């Protein structure tokens, strides 16, 4: 049996912390072990080395949005899974751009939080429906380019189909559906600001064969895009 993944919950509402802890306890495989809970980030900041593999971070602590604190946590060696009631696509995108491994909305928690934590611990992509929604809504000029198939898989996933159904709808295997969706996430890890967590996600995606280094486009401005940028080369940054 693999070693348990250790997790810390940073959440200012004790009832939510209790709920998350119960989801972790009720995981049949007992794959995750809760090692720390806190109502703010001071404890994590003062620790000399990461006290947990993954931090489940409520994005709003004591009335303040803490998305901008994510880079500091990531730099300290934590993998961050954001868990929030804010499902505004702009906040979701910002959370991922700052280096969080995944975003799980509070509505999705029961079905997705433990899985997202496990995926994050392995530096593997985990795309919730709320994350898919934010990516579909992304209209920033610097957004990564998605293929038709990737976009379709993401749309059907957002719409609420299971990945197996998405596969049947698109006449591809469930595994290919996962591949498409993971590739979208990897493309986002390759874009925007740099973060060690994004590099780790990307390296793992390349290792797993989700994406080839050549498929990772560096950021293209409108002017450069017109100038036919070569697509081969290093993973962006």
């Amino acid at each position, binding site marked *: 049996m693999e070693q348990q993944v250790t997790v810390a919950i940073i959440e200012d509402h004790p009832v939510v912390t209790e709920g998350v802890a119960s989801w972790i306890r009720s995981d049949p495989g007992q794959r995750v072990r809760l090692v720390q809970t806190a109502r703010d980030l001071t404890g994590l900041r003062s620790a000399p080395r990461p006290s947990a593999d993954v931090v489940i971070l409520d994005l709003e602590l004591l009335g303040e949005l803490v998305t901008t604190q994510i880079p500091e946590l990531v730099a300290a060696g934590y993998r961050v899974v954001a868990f929030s009631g804010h*499902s505004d*696509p702009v906040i979701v995108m910002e959370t991922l751009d700052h280096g969080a491994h995944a975003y799980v909305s509070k*509505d999705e928690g029961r079905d997705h939080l433990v899985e997202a934590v496990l995926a994050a611990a392995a530096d593997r992509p985990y795309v919730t*429906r709320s994350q*898919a*929604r*934010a990516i*579909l*809504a992304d*209209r920033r000029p610097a957004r990564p380019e998605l293929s038709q198939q990737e976009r379709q898989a993401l*749309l*059907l996933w*957002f*719409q*609420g*189909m*299971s990945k*197996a*159904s998405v596969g*049947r*709808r698109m006449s591809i295997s469930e595994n290919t559906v996962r591949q498409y969706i993971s590739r979208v996430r990897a493309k986002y890890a390759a874009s925007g600001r740099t973060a060690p967590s994004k590099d780790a996600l990307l390296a793992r995606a390349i290792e797993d064969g989700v994406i080839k280094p050549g498929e990772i486009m560096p950021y293209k401005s409108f002017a450069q895009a017109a100038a036919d940028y070569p697509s081969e080369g290093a993973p962006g940054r």
Partner: protein
Amino acid sequence: MTAVPPTTIMSGRYQRAFTIAVVVLVAGWHLAGAGGQLLDYRPAYGSFAFQGAMWLVMALGIAAGSLLVLRGAPGWRPAWAVAVIALAASTAAAAASPAAQMLAVNWAWGSAGWMGVLVLLHRRFAELAWFLAAEALATLGVQVWDGLDRTNLAGFLALLAWSTGAQVAVAAGVRALDLAAGQAAAAAASEHAARERAATAEIIRAARHARWLALQEGAVPLVAELAVGTADPGDAQVRIRCAVQAARLRRLLAEGDEVPGSLVHELHASADVAERRGVAVEIETAGALPQVPGPARRVITDAAIAILTAARSQTRITLAAVAAGIAVSFVADTGAVVPLPAVGEGVAIEQQEDDGMLWAEARWNSR
């Protein structure tokens, strides 16, 4: 937003009125004032034809300048081109006048000054001042060339005070009126904005009130029953009621203040009916949704009602902006496909039944 702020419209309207007034004033002066003087002193000029030609040049300059200012604030090049024509023509006319009577028969100074006012009115005040000074200096220069004595120096100063004074006064007056119009328009705009804010606040308040009422009839009694123990969380029926109320609460929180008449709003209304029957409904949107025309909306909401009616316990409705349109999808536990039209009013509907779950998508394209 494509709407022009009311401030701009109003002060623009006033500004145009002032511009038209100045055009009429300048044209009237050149026609009646300068033209009358020119005809009056007709025998005094060495060459009446030359004076007439200069008058015509300036008349054309006034026509061009009027067109420029009526089409909007002219740039410095066209404005100064007209001003320089005025300066040159008036100086030439003065120089060609008989030396002894130059100031007495000079019709051009006044017209040239008014032309300057016309084209430089909405530019910096210093530009007009420079122009009027140059015009006065040119006329004085001609007089010095002809010979300057105390009598005609006094005449020059009197004319300067009379014509330039009037021109400066008009320019300053229009500026003051412009300023006042801007203030009046700003005041009107802020009143308009305040009214709009009040109306928006009222709509939001009404929407909040409606949400609060919805909670009163659904979630509040359920929580009360759970608290006193008359509802047992172990009972499947109670769990379904909880799921429905939870979905409803989530929806109410996420709802924001939708614009009435939008597709989302109509789908919410359909969802309300299904919820009363015990179906938990989620509605989510992705991206900036386009406005869907009424008939197409009707096809989509009819599909929604058919699916919600067939759903046993849950339905997820999503609205996503897709290239050139919108994809409205439904994932529901209907157990079978639902009889729906395949196309209608520009909406194409597809369905797939898989493991007891129905997926249906209605796509509307703007093209």
